[in-house]
């Protein structure tokens, strides 16, 4: 028997697990943000935070259930009328909330969600927007937080797509309660200052802007 050949016993044993070894679910790896959530929620509980339960949502099944609701409101411009906040009952964002995201005319029918977690370093925003087509070649999506009258914008990250990505913002969602996603291009002369293109593809309301 060559030295680099398995014994018959080893081969027989591995054959018993062939089906399991071929099963993709055996090889599945949690998304990177799961680790961050585990660390954050344990840290919060260890510190005696009032956030004793951590709202974990199945983003995809909830996105499907929101389809009918989002379909009624998924039109209009960037300065949207506040979309009903899903996870809180008042205008103040809770330490962790999930909000509905809806497409504009540039992304009709788009539905998804964003999960927000307020931590000491800022606001972490975990997106589930599977319907946005990937942008490459110097084109990308930009996430923004915006104040209610739309006069102040805070960038929160640029991405190829918005499904399963995490954005960060260093401002309070109380002061900047509107969440928008624009499509952008990096190369001048279109946008030499790299500000917003104004081409909003999706919006969400962290809290109500109603007077």
């Amino acid at each position: 028997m060559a030295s680099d050949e398995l014994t018959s016993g080893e081969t027989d044993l591995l054959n018993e697990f062939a089906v399991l070894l071929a099963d993709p679910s055996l090889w599945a790896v949690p998304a990177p943000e799961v680790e961050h959530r585990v660390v954050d929620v344990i840290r919060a509980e260890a510190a005696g935070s009032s956030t004793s339960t951590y709202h974990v949502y199945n983003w995809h099944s909830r996105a499907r259930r929101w389809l009918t609701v989002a379909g009624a409101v998924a039109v209009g411009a960037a300065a949207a009328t506040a979309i009903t906040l899903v996870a809180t009952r008042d205008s103040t964002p809770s330490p962790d909330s999930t909000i509905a995201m809806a497409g504009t005319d540039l992304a009709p029918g788009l539905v998804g969600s964003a999960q927000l977690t307020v931590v000491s370093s800022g606001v972490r925003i975990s997106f589930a927007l599977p319907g946005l087509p990937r942008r490459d070649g110097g084109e990308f999506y930009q996430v923004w937080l915006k104040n209610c009258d739309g006069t102040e914008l805070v960038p929160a990250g640029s991405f190829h797509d918005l499904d399963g990505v995490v954005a960060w913002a260093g401002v309070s969602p109380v002061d900047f309660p509107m969440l928008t996603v624009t499509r952008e291009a990096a190369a001048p002369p279109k946008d030499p200052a790299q500000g917003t293109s104004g081409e909003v593809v999706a919006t969400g309301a962290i809290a109500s802007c109603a007077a």
Partner: protein
Amino acid sequence: MGTVLEGLPANRLVTEVAGPTGANVYDHEMFGSVALDEATVDAFRRGDDAAVRAVYQQYSGLSMAVAMRVLGDRGLAEESVQQAFLQAWRNAGAFDSGRDLAPWLATITRRTAIDIQRREARRTTSSLDDADPTDSALITMPPSEERAWEAAQVRLAIDSLSTDEREIVRLHHMEGLTHQLIADHLGIALGTVKSRSFRAHQRLAAALGHLRDVPS
């Protein structure tokens, strides 16, 4: 069930699961995964970020494999993994830091996964008359604890391989590639693939040998 491989560490875990006809006792012999040191486990108990990350990185694969076995849905499985680690931390005070966390985490994960499965079943209610007769949810039960353990063990064995070895095993079994195709895919020599594959499968066989029934 299985044998303790000579010279290799083993952890014994006896669990009791309530069944329809009374309690079923499972006596597990697990191939010893590389257990974290006691200092790390103690730091995990305190909620130390680095220790939490270390525990998560060591066992998240195992937890995900068990959760996927029960739930079959990535999003729900990730939720189960998160809940499992949180519950593990909440109950870490009752855990002996000298023991391997793997069997304990696998048990917790299976329970959280079953809880989620039941929650999702309650959420989606519809008439049976509307159900697709081929829908597996109509006839499937949560996998037995034995099946969940098996998945956990195989995943632990896989995770114990080096990155190179694990990738070759994955390409071979999950993607169905031959050694030549693996070599082409990875851009390495065929001989390198063969030697890595041999080492990887030899290690897997050693790791999983205790799961085979011992002939009487």
